[in-house]
């Protein structure tokens, strides 16, 4: 029981990170209907920015933890959004209105580019930072197992919940949200109504990148080790999460992320760690067989 609880905490933390990245996929998919394959690498870029920022802060002897984390978050969000903007501008905007596959290939190219750019400029070695937050709370002690939740895990789950609420508000209540949803429905019509579609799409990419930036900072704080390869693995998992939850749906992305985190943890905990990826994808396929638009996706009525 205690063991299961611990695995639940692990799974939730992992799932929260996947969820944060998955929202980026889902938002971009919602608005222009493309899989932004480079999104995982945007997340990786932000993790590197976080490493640099943390190291700089340490060099200036800024030790106040809330200050440091806030500063790093701001820096990471700022620069990563710039990357999100630039990627859209360079690799996707010229392809708007072409076939569905063209932006996908461009995105794969962008992903290769970003990985290698980071490898070249930042080096191939892993980047470790000293633990930022240490310790945690002991939740439950049984004779043979102690359930702990680390402060970082609490931080990640909290931040995710806050962002989730904030984004739901942003999309449903603000004028930007309305514009964004309007573009999702029909971008030509939206443009005719005098809304700057290009700007809305750019903003969406920047917001997606900002969320990836938060995820990048959280991962840096939590795992403490970053390399140029992390974007690929996390990207695929997050993409799977977005689809599982129903691509285009914000709560769906979060739910998908959490589910994948939990499936991975519990499969590895009770069955075999070797086949946990097989389990994840098999469950995805099963879900899609019965709900072809994912768990929370709006079922696509065959419009005849």
């Amino acid at each position, binding site marked *: 029981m205690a063991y299961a609880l611990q695995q639940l905490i692990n799974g939730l933390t992992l799932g929260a990170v996947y969820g944060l990245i998955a929202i980026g996929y889902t938002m971009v998919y919602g608005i222009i209907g493309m899989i932004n394959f480079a999104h995982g690498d945007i997340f990786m870029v932000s993790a590197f920015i976080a490493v640099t920022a943390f190291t700089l802060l340490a060099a200036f002897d800024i030790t106040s933890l809330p200050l440091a984390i806030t500063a790093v978050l701001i820096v990471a969000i700022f620069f990563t959004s710039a990357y999100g903007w630039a990627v859209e501008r360079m690799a996707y905007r010229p392809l708007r209105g072409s076939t569905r596959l*063209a932006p996908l290939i461009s995105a794969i190219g962008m992903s290769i580019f970003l990985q290698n750019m980071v490898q070249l400029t930042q080096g191939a070695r892993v980047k470790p930072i000293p633990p930022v937050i240490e310790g945690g709370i002991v939740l439950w002690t049984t004779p043979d197992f102690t359930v702990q939740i680390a402060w970082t895990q609490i931080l990640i789950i909290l931040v995710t919940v806050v962002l989730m609420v904030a984004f739901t508000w942003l999309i449903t209540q603000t004028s930007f949200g309305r514009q964004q949803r309007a573009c999702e429905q029909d971008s030509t019509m939206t443009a005719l109504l005098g809304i700057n579609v290009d700007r809305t799409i750019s903003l969406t990419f920047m917001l997606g990148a900002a969320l990836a930036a938060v995820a990048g900072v959280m991962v840096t704080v939590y795992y403490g080790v970053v390399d140029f390869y992390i974007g690929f693995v996390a990207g695929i998992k997050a993409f799977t999460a977005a689809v599982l939850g129903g691509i285009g749906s914000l709560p769906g992305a979060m739910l998908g992320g959490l589910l994948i985190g939990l499936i991975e943890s519990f499969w590895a905990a009770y069955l075999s760690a070797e086949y946990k990826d097989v389990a994840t994808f098999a469950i995805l396929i099963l879900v899609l067989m019965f709900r072809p638009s994912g768990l929370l996706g709006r079922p696509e009525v065959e419009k005849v």
Partner: protein
Amino acid sequence: MSAVIVARHARTPTERFKDAAWVAFVALLLGIPMVGMTTVDQGGALVVTTRFGVLAAFVAASFAGRFAFRWVMDQYRTRRDAKSTTVKVDRTAKVVQVLGWGILGVALFLPAMYSDNRYVVDTATTVLIYVMLGWGLNVVVGLAGLLDLGYVAFYAVGAYTYALLFTHFGWTFWEALPAAGAMAATFGILLGYPILRLRGDYLAIVTLGFGEIIRVILVNWTELSNGPNGIGSIPRPTLFGLPFERNPAEGEQSFATFFGLEFSGMHRIIFLYYLILVLALLTNLFVSRLRKLPVGRAWEALREDEIACKAMGMNVTNVKLSAFAIGAMLGGFAGVFFAARQGFISPESFTFSESAIILAIVVLGGMGSQMGVVLAALVLVLLPELGRNFAEYRMLLFGTAMVLIMVWKPSGLLSSREPTIRLAKASAMGGQK
């Protein structure tokens, strides 16, 4: 890299200057965290070092590059606008045909021109493997319009089928080839079945997942696949039973002894090259012919409009499954050849990035275009190879090139479609009867 931004027409020098300044500013923003700073490991802890000189150079290069690019583009546009009255005759079909024969000619005589250069022949072999894979995937993606991000799974199934049939039952290349094709086709149907209802990007992620499932199983099911150690000592194909070996088994002939030649490793390389050339050409013939058959037309119709297909009484399930099966089978054949050529296979050769490259070949080539696949395979395989001189920059250039080609030609290098039947020709045929 910033030079990709194709903005509105900047005509006046001031506008051009402003535009370039904006690009330089973006370059600065992007450059600060990546180019301007880096962390280095010093005695067990990271320290930030700055490279503001490099950053300045990067920003300056972006500015200059953008400025020059816009200038050239403007010149080009002015000139093009001036000439725009001349009507362009679409001769793509003719050009493609000539190009095709040209490339075939080069392909046929390539080993003769480079008979002592195993690198060239071997690289050409790699190109041909990708051409074959591209033609196979073209059936699924280009013709039937089903996005498949896990094509490498079938390539793996083919390769492992041969490797296992050989290790356990001693099957030769030629015996295993059809078996592996059938096996891969079976897997194609296996994948196709549960996902018939899925569309577009849902299909993409499921196929991606399928590819990963196959790879993870190959890594973990050690009893079957020998796990990450892979399977080695896979025999090379023989020429009508003549092996390409220095020391043939007692009482047997090898290629070299049979023809009274001195043994050379090049014989086998060249033989493998011609073998894949023949396999690829057969694939091309096969796919081109299928395209003109009901099943091929049904694939294209499916790509165009699935609902209309149903309304025409077409069994969409069968059409999809046949596309998956045929595509998978061709991938399986390529896999057998790959296993035979490498002599050693392990799950590392069948990762997602492989699927991505094959898909990129199909899309860059121009979906559905057989000749486009050839061009794209040439570009995507030769680029990293030529890039070997640039060492660590080569994959960077590769990624950049993928983006640039896509932006330059969003519908692929060769995007014109050749009808499968023409009224004029067809009536002539019908009239003779």
